[in-house]
């Protein structure tokens, strides 16, 4: 069985109706520890550099705090963070030279377990896609974001997402097949 990587627990969002949550340091730390790891995974798979991913991660949280955004609940804050992170990635790719868009084939900082199916070669397959395709696929199939949320994060029209996602998926499937990757599923 393949479990989803990110499943954020909901927290109590407000103490009084209509009253905004005050983001104190403890609340921030709490949010950070719940969301930072999957957000870093998204950034890392999108940009391919752990140091850069960590820089962008910190910048995303800093921007969220500076904006004064409090959000209604964890999902709302998570979506906002992913939107900021996506904007930061877009800025990075605009500034960076085209060749630096490539995601490294293997991330040496991770431990590779050869026994586990569909591992790091996914990174190589993803690196062959455009940054926007990577982000779209990750948001859709790892974060479980709706088409509307993806459109908001990527600055696209909701109506376009379905077909764009379909094409991006085809491209990734082609890359995965080229690497002779096959899903190993437990059918119950």
């Amino acid at each position, binding site marked *: *069985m393949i479990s989803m990587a990110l499943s954020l627990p909901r927290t109590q969002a407000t103490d009084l109706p209509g009253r905004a949550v005050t983001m104190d340091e403890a609340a921030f730390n709490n949010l950070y520890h719940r969301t930072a790891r999957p957000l870093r995974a998204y950034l890392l798979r999108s940009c391919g550099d752990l140091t850069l991913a960590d820089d962008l991660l910190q910048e995303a949280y800093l921007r969220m705090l500076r904006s004064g955004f409090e959000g209604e609940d964890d999902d709302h804050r998570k979506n906002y963070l992913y939107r900021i992170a996506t904007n930061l990635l877009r800025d990075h790719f605009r500034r960076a030279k085209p060749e630096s868009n490539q995601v490294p084939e293997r991330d040496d900082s991770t431990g590779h377990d050869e026994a586990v199916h569909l591992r790091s070669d996914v990174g190589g397959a993803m690196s062959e896609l455009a940054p926007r395709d990577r982000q779209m696929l990750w948001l859709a199939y790892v974060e479980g974001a709706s088409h509307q949320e993806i459109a908001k994060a990527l600055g696209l029209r909701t109506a376009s997402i379905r077909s764009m996602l379909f094409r991006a998926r085809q491209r990734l499937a082609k890359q995965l097949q080229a690497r002779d990757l096959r899903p190993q599923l437990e059918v119950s």
Partner: protein
Amino acid sequence: MSSHSQPCPYEEAVAAAVRSGDWSPELSTHRDGCLTCAELTLVVAALAADAEELNAIETPLPDPAPIWLRARLASRERDYHRATRAITWVQRAAVAVVFGIGVAFAPGLWEFVGGAFSNLSGSISAPDLPRAAGSPLLVLVVSILVLGGLALWELTAAQEN
């Protein structure tokens, strides 16, 4: 697998089944016969495995404390600018008031000042000089000029900063 697949109405159900591992026999049969769903299965499974691996990276996350501290500093800086903006507006108001008073009373003041200065002419003896210089009107005019000048100086200094 070729790239001739078409969107399929079962996509959402298939994606959910890949995530949960809960395949009904019908869905499983459908997946085996549908190019789109087979592709979708491959992609979702690959990404889920990849996410699992990336989440398990042992490199510790950046410390959140400096992020919080930087945000607090930025917040204080914003507060400072907000506070000094109010002071700047008070200074501007002071300059405007001084200027307004000057314009409103300019003709009359000119006569009084002229008179005061004529009293300060060489004909005044040295013992009378402090009394003439301490004339209330002259003190008022000089005070307004000095305070107005100071307010103006403060204002321009604040804008330069």
